[in-house]
């Protein structure tokens, strides 16, 4: 069962939430960020190359041009491999744990799995940043020595930063599963 609705992130860009129910206690939420815009890439590249050409015009040194090309290529590769996140997934399996995965534009995936025994709760927290209040979903991790205290907080969907309406969907489903299996 998959659902798709219109959501935006905190900056106003449109994102999409996909919710898949694999079984009664296993759900997967995927938040997809807007893709890399071609216009931005072209503008950036043109800017850098025009600047390099201007420098070449004055210095008559071809290494400036080749280094500009290499710099642009390297920068683009680093950006799509390490910086640009395509989609983020939250897979919650009742009584086993929660898996967070970020998939980058180049296809690389980075995954973390948090076991249920370490997980205290999933909550929506609010953060005050300058003039705005940002809501974020986070996982509270138990301290192994003292189960009542919170050892650390793992924020979810850090790159896509969805707004509260999207977070509430995810929060409700997660709490259903957590209530069922504990």
């Amino acid at each position, binding site marked *: 069962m998959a659902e798709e609705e219109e959501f935006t992130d905190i900056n106003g860009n449109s994102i999409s939430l996909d919710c898949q129910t694999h*079984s*009664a*206690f296993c759900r997967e939420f995927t938040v997809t960020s807007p893709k890399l815009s071609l216009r931005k890439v072209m503008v950036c590249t043109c800017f850098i190359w025009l600047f390099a050409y201007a420098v070449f015009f004055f210095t008559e040194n071809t290494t400036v041009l080749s280094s500009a090309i290499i710099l642009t290529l390297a920068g683009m590769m680093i950006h799509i491999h390490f910086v640009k996140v395509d989609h983020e997934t939250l*897979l919650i399996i009742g*009584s*086993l744990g929660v898996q967070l995965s970020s998939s980058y534009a180049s296809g690389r995936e980075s995954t*973390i799995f948090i076991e249920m025994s370490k997980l205290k709760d999933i909550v929506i927290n609010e953060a005050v940043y300058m003039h705005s209040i940002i809501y974020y979903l986070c996982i509270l991790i138990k301290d192994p020595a003292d189960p009542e205290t919170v050892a650390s907080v793992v924020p979810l969907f850090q790159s896509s930063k969805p707004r509260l309406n999207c977070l509430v969907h995810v929060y409700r489903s997660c709490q259903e599963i957590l209530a069922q299996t504990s």
Partner: protein
Amino acid sequence: MVLKLFFPQCCNTADSGLLVGRWIPGHNSAVVLAVIHYPFIPGQVKKYLSELQSQTQVDLTVLGSWSMPKEGQEGMDSFLKDLSTIFPQECWLQLSREIGKRGFTCQVVQNNGRLLQDREQKNGEGDKIILIHYDQRKVMLSQLHPVQDVGQKSDVEASELRLVFQTVAQSQPLFFLDKYDDGPLKLSHWQSEGREASIIAELLKQASVPVCIFLTWLLSLWYWFCMVLKMLFISSKLSTCVQSVYRAVHFRTVFSPKKAGTHVEFMRKANIFVSFLVDIALGLLLISWLYRENRISKLADTLVPVADRVAKELQELLEWLMGAPAGLKMNRALDQVLGRFFLYHIHLWISYIHLMSPFIERILWYVGLSACLGLTFALSVLSDIVALLTFHIYCFYVYGARLYCLTIYGLSSLWRLFRGKKWNVLRQRVDSCSYDLDQLFIGTLLFTILLFLLPTTALYYLVFTLLRLVVVLFQGVIHLSVDFINSFPLFAIGLRICRPYRLAEGVKFNVLCQEPGTPLHLMMEINPLKCSSVLQCYRTPTYSCYPKDSWAALCKKLFVGELIYPWKQKTDKTD
């Protein structure tokens, strides 16, 4: 409660039989390790399992039955149900799979005969089952980080995944029986297609013990020699000696005939061994470069002129200081005294170098051969040569610093006298004191003298401290690179690149698409450790401790005139 079953991928297509594994204590889950096929005698199964239990310290039991019926095996189901009476368990699992379908069906029978099925029920009651598929060989070889020792009694309960990994790793003897064995039992697991072994590996294992014993005996001689050297004061200053002692200690760990018990010990041994081999290889490369075209003689020939040149530059510097350096006016008499004193030192030094010059080439030729002991040795020798050649700069720095230090102490003490105060040694504080008139008179006189001599001593101190810092910087760079070669865990990084499943940070789950009516199937894969964590975890500890002083403390020491020793090494005895 949800029941979790860890099922090995190699048993997906196994024939019908009994499931052998372990119930994970404290969590509602079980790990399936192997499938015992028909026909079998229940008594022999029980005997085999109890033998393995005593061998591996893992409480193996029969978990249930596995049925994958082929044509002509229709009567299996009832036979399988009767098996639960032969092997009495609290919970009996009945896994079954049909050819052509991908999902398994699972039924759990409790001890009191209550049958719990994995069907969606209206009232929401009933156990649910998750089947987690795992790659048995990878999980067996993998090590979860942060590493916790098996026998260690920790107050933190081991997590479920850690227990699963430990169970599979400890059950290695279970996987020794393959399908070519003529025993009474036929098992299915990752190695049941036939155990792999290599003759070379076996021969190396057999040969390694006597070789290790011989090398340990050799090393004990070297170690005794190093201990004797340590008695000399100078050995702690020469980095070559320190490096050789450090290497000797390492080899004791690597070549000890005892097999490495825990994962951490094994990785430490392997890292030291590999880094030692790479060190030797780089050293031999350096030798082949140095001795080709007789470069070493050319190097030796340029050494004496370079030392001469350095001495000449120092002389010119002193002449400049004795004049009016940077337009400052010095105290003529003190200037001349200090300048002549240092010039005489340089003259002695140059004569010493000229005395040594016919022997330098031979000495350097033999010393260069020591690079066959490793690149780190060659770098340590270079650092020592630089230290010896710049010994006069070190001496000048010490003289300048002591003089400046005395001046500063004198000034501060007389300044207190000027203000009518005194340092109370007993109470370690400044107290007021009434002085006699003649004490005050002499004190003020001395204070004035020292104050006017201060710029001269300060300038000499500044110049020689800067020179000393340049030499220390160069030695520091060499020291850092030696440290890097010593501590870099090459084996761990190689393992992370070539066999990423060996060093695991955690696991990843993938949901496998299933048919309706079957329990949830997940695929568990190993999430390898990040390279930065590998470096942090497996760095070999080295003998150098970085300067304990922060920058502020260092600046204060320089200002007051205390001698600085930036590269203090860890000593065994407490000072």
